[in-house]
């Protein structure tokens, strides 16, 4: 374990340095995501104003605000570019350079991306949560913030990230078959966005459909952590959803190992 840590920490380090190299790009990336988040806020605000009651499908306006900003924060935190990264390496053949090193292919991606993300998250989580809670306290008129929920939320995010990462690795291996992943990746992002509750809360959907979606791995990505933060899941329900996350993380971890063994055999390095 200690050895594994020693081998892969340089990847975290390198990932961080890479992000820091293109500082301006990074600032624009964060600004862009925050802007998108505000757009979605104004849309929901308008929806609520045109609605009849105080609540909509069980969500009050302050709750909806928390939901929107948390979904944004969660999807940034758990976001993974692994599918794209694997696809690009397969497309331009640079996968060869990773294969000649005595390291696990998936693990190098994981740790490099963790390095990339650590930097982003340090600058995002604290101000966003603080800002959100201040706004919420002002609107609602009392403190609804729970440290316990925040801590469970963060753990749940780690699980969600692992699910997302290994799911993306599995998806990325598609590149071994279809060679170029851009289109498939667009489609995947769209579907995952919808199924994970990033576009509308899953409880807004018809009940049966919502139930089915909750069992799919994608609900574990965004919806579950946000519900935990908002204190919707308690007790056994909470344990059930965390358990489901653990299951999906292990499932995609196993699947990625299996697919790796299968696909590396059919690898044909493109471009000399």
């Amino acid at each position, binding site marked *: 374990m200690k*050895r594994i840590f*020693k*081998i892969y*920490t*340089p*990847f975290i*380090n*390198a990932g961080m*340095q*890479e992000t820091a*190299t*293109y500082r301006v790009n990074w600032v624009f990336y964060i600004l862009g995501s925050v802007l998108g988040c505000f757009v979605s806020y104004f849309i929901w605000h308008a929806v609520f104003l045109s609605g009849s009651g105080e609540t909509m499908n069980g969500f009050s306006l302050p709750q909806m605000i928390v939901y929107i900003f948390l979904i944004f924060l969660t999807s940034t935190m758990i976001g993974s570019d692994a599918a794209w990264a694997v696809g690009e390496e397969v497309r331009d*053949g*640079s996968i*060869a*350079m990773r*294969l*000649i*090193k*005595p*390291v*696990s292919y998936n693990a190098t991606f994981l740790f490099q991306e963790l390095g990339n993300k650590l930097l982003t998250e340090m600058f995002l989580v604290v101000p966003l949560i603080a800002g959100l809670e201040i706004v919420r306290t002002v609107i609602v008129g009392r403190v609804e913030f729970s440290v316990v929920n925040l801590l469970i939320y963060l753990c749940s995010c780690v699980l969600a990230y692992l699910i997302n990462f290994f799911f993306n690795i599995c998806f990325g291996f598609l590149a071994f078959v279809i060679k170029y992943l851009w289109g498939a990746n667009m489609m995947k992002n769209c579907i995952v966005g919808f199924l994970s509750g990033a576009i509308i809360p899953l409880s807004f959907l018809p009940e049966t459909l919502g139930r089915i979606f909750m069992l799919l791995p994608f609900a574990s990505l965004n919806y579950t952590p946000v519900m935990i933060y908002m204190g919707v899941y308690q007790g056994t329900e909470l344990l059930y959803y965390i358990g489901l996350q653990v299951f999906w993380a292990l499932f995609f971890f196993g699947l990625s190992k299996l697919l790796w063994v299968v696909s*590396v*055999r059919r*690898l*044909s*390095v493109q471009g*000399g």
Partner: protein
Amino acid sequence: MIQVENLRKEFKKTVKEPGLKGSFKSLFRPKTERVVAVDDISFEVPKGEILGFIGPNGAGKSTVIKMLTGILTPTSGRCTINGKNPTVSRKSYVKEIGVVFGQRTQLWWDLPLRETYGVLKEIYEVDDKSYKERMAFLNETLDLESFISSPVRTLSLGQRMRADIAASLLHSPKVLFLDEPTIGLDVVVKDNIRRAIEQINRQEQTTVILTTHDLADIELLADRIVMIDKGRNVFDGSVGELKTRYGQIRELNFVTDSPDPKAALDYLRHFSIGEEDVSVKCEGSAVKVRFNSSAVPVSDILAYTLETVHVNDISVKDADIEEIIRRLYKQGVE
């Protein structure tokens, strides 16, 4: 010790008919065909040898190297390197080898060069003391000091290649694979890199497998040559053997003041040989005769030439390896 037995690799390739119409067709019903990139290749390399691996573009050199380094899985056949099978035990196998692909880099594109070496040190579990000694040694042979703090993306091609070679040697590999290590480099850097390869081979008994199109690399470095063409092994032997086997071609150069040397000298009829064994080229008063010395002895050609025309200056040259290989590439081997 490297053993390659009956190695074969096939690829599936989609064939696209020409033009837009062809693109549409292949979008809905792609036609595939099997391409045999490497066809039944066998050879052995003993420890400490430098093997030159040559062949025209598309001969399958890189595919063989990729199978030997565990990147590609052979369709059939076996390769064993130091008793290990690259595709079966990839992680423990690649620990013992160093690889440089001239057209790609293993360096971290956005980080200073020094950081890449730091990462490699951990990956290969090189301890601090050996790392320091190794860096000092590589610094001396490859002269990295002046750019070791610059990000890799700012390096020139020559610097990058030196850095890449150093990266492949950091963990003192037993076998070094170099796929076109001198591609696109100037004479000074080429020379620098050749000397480094030679030195490492001599000092550490590192086995080196080298593919290249620069035949000077082969003549200066390789103990042995394996040549492949269209995926098949066409020659396996030393540089000297290649010369004796295919290199009976000599070149006779002389300057004459006779008016029409080409008409006067009728090698074909005099020695009753075919056109494939002799060719004559005149440029003003300089004449160049290329002939096969196994068909006509050098002394006979010289005697006949000297008595037929008046010669001022004359010399006979051995065909160089480049000439041999050019001929082999062109006509293929029986």
